[in-house]
């Protein structure tokens, strides 16, 4: 019997890997074809693609002033909020927040949720030295905390104050939402949910509260509810002057 050398193990692995990737590749192509005809149902093995661009439309007229459901849903989904016990309020994470705006001229008061705007040209991605701040093919902007060094340059660059730095050790993170000390984080449009064909937690919570102020969908699909609504009634960007082409749009501001 010949002794098993490390090389032969590696070779075995390579062969196995090639076989499997061929199989996976086959699997990926077939549903991909169907995918474009039927509604989106991304197989787990399929990569996200630039055929989609996810977006959220906020109708501020429907957004209720006292309601905080989108925020608490996000906290529950991603485990932020009460997890930081030592940080001061201005040091605690804020993935999404409710903002009240009052017109100085008319006194008109509005309430709206503000989170990462998922820009097409995100300044946070431009400035990140390591490439940790990134945009997925499907337009979701998020932080790869594995290579985030905690320099906070992205927080300096973000026009929306959408990013948070973690100032202390965390525990009991959600399995689907890893987050930890010394790195920067922000709304990731619930990427793990979106990849499994579910709506972001905030959108779901808003519908559940029967406000329906948040609409999630594919901006690149002209048939999607969000595209139809945007085409019909339009949607503004916050700080449109910066030309960032945000994926989160607002009506009524």
């Amino acid at each position, binding site marked *: 019997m010949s002794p098993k050398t490390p090389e032969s193990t590696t070779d075995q692995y390579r062969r196995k890997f090639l076989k499997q990737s061929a199989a996976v590749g086959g699997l990926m192509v077939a549903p991909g074809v169907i995918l474009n005809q039927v509604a989106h149902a991304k197989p787990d093995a399929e990569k996200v693609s630039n055929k989609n661009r996810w977006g959220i439309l906020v109708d501020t007229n429907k957004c209720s002033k006292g309601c905080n459901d989108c925020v608490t849903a996000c906290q529950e989904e991603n485990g932020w909020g009460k997890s*930081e016990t*030592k*940080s*001061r309020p*201005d*040091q*605690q*994470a*804020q993935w999404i*927040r*409710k*903002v*009240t*705006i*009052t*017109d*100085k*001229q008319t006194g008109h008061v509005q309430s709206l949720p*503000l989170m990462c705007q998922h820009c097409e040209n995100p*300044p946070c*991605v*431009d*400035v*990140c*030295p*390591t*490439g940790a701040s990134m945009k997925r093919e499907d337009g979701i902007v998020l932080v790869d905390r594995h*290579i*985030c*060094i*905690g*320099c*906070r*340059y992205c*927080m*300096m*660059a*973000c*026009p*929306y*104050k959408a*990013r*948070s*730095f*973690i*100032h*202390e*050790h965390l525990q009991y993170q959600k399995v689907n939402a890893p987050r930890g*000390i*010394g*790195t*920067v984080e922000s709304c990731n449009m619930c990427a793990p949910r979106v990849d499994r064909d579910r709506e972001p937690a905030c959108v779901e919570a808003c519908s559940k509260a029967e406000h329906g102020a948040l609409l999630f969908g594919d901006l690149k699909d002209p048939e999607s509810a969000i595209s139809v609504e945007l085409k019909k009634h339009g949607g503004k960007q*916050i*700080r449109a002057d*910066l030309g960032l082409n945000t994926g989160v749009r607002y009506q009524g*501001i």
Partner: protein
Amino acid sequence: MKKPVFTQIKGNSSGYWMLLALLGGFILTALGATYYMEHGGHYVTGMSNNIVWGMPHVFAVFLIVAASGALNVASISSVFAKTAYKPLAPLSTLLAVALLAGGLMVLVLDLGRPDRLIVAMTKYNFKSIFAWNIILYNGFFVVVGIYMWTMLQRSMNKYSKVAGFSAFIWRLILTTGTGSIFGFLVARQAYDAAIMAPMFIVMSFSYGLAIYMLVLMASYKWTNRPLGDATFKRLKNLLGVFIAGVFYFIVVKHLTNLYATEHHGVEAFILRDGGIYTQMFWYGVMLIGTVIPLAIIYHPTVGMSRSAVGVASLFVILGGLALMYVIIIGGQAYPLVLFPGKEVSSTFFDGMVNNYAPTLAETLLGIGGFAVALFIVAFAVKVLRFLPESLADEAVDPHHSK
């Protein structure tokens, strides 16, 4: 003209060892502060999600800017061929490298994950000005190191001009990069201005020279080596010009901003309503950093006193730190304008001026950067030949007449 004779300093006096011990103490304190900040996280600092860059960055950016400025004296000798500056050049390169090392130490030790420094060195996003800067900083050590070598080793002297020229170009790009860190931040009212880059270059001239003069005067005094009036006067007049240059850029920057209505809010904040930032600007930058040093330097009698010019240099440094504080922290304290013409409120302090109270730890870390730089200089002049034995007027300038 005699060739200047460079020698090591003896460095065996009790004063020398006390200096090293003192600087070492500051460095250890800074490391202790880092341990305190990094062990449990940044919650122990005054920094927050609103003021994301604090005291460490004030010191780090100042030191990095001053580093490239400290190289100026050497550049004048090799790039602009002024022989009178030649004996001053080796110390200039040493100080440049030392200040950069100090600044970078502060910057790195304040990272959220300093343990991942290797990531910063291996993964680059080439669109990021920060990433360019990492390359520029590392390159600065190499380029200035080679330049230093061409000056210290006689057989390499012939390459010194080429090396000096490369170092000069490199430092201009480096400071442009440092200024651009802020200049390209479109999101914030206080930063978005291309003038930041040239302004940082002139600031570097001024701060680098101020530190250089203090180090030069102190080392010559403590080692009893002669430092002639001609050299002294040349340097202090140059410093005067640089201070005026910085003043000019500050005025232009604010006037430009005042012209655009969009920027009136942030200008009023810095210049009139900003509390600590306004005080820092008028008392720190304008009075201590500009008016008093200029008055001292150009005063016919006071301006000839070494200690008075030493105070002026110190004031330039303090004014520089104040300007960094106003730019870096004042710029973040002013709220982001998300909805023009509307009043904004939220659970995350939207529409409010952000508070920042620096803690002792982060300040000590910053001061540690200075200590590292000075420690390197004090050690290096003992082991290598950086300082000419004499900077007396006859030794420096053959045409000098008594």
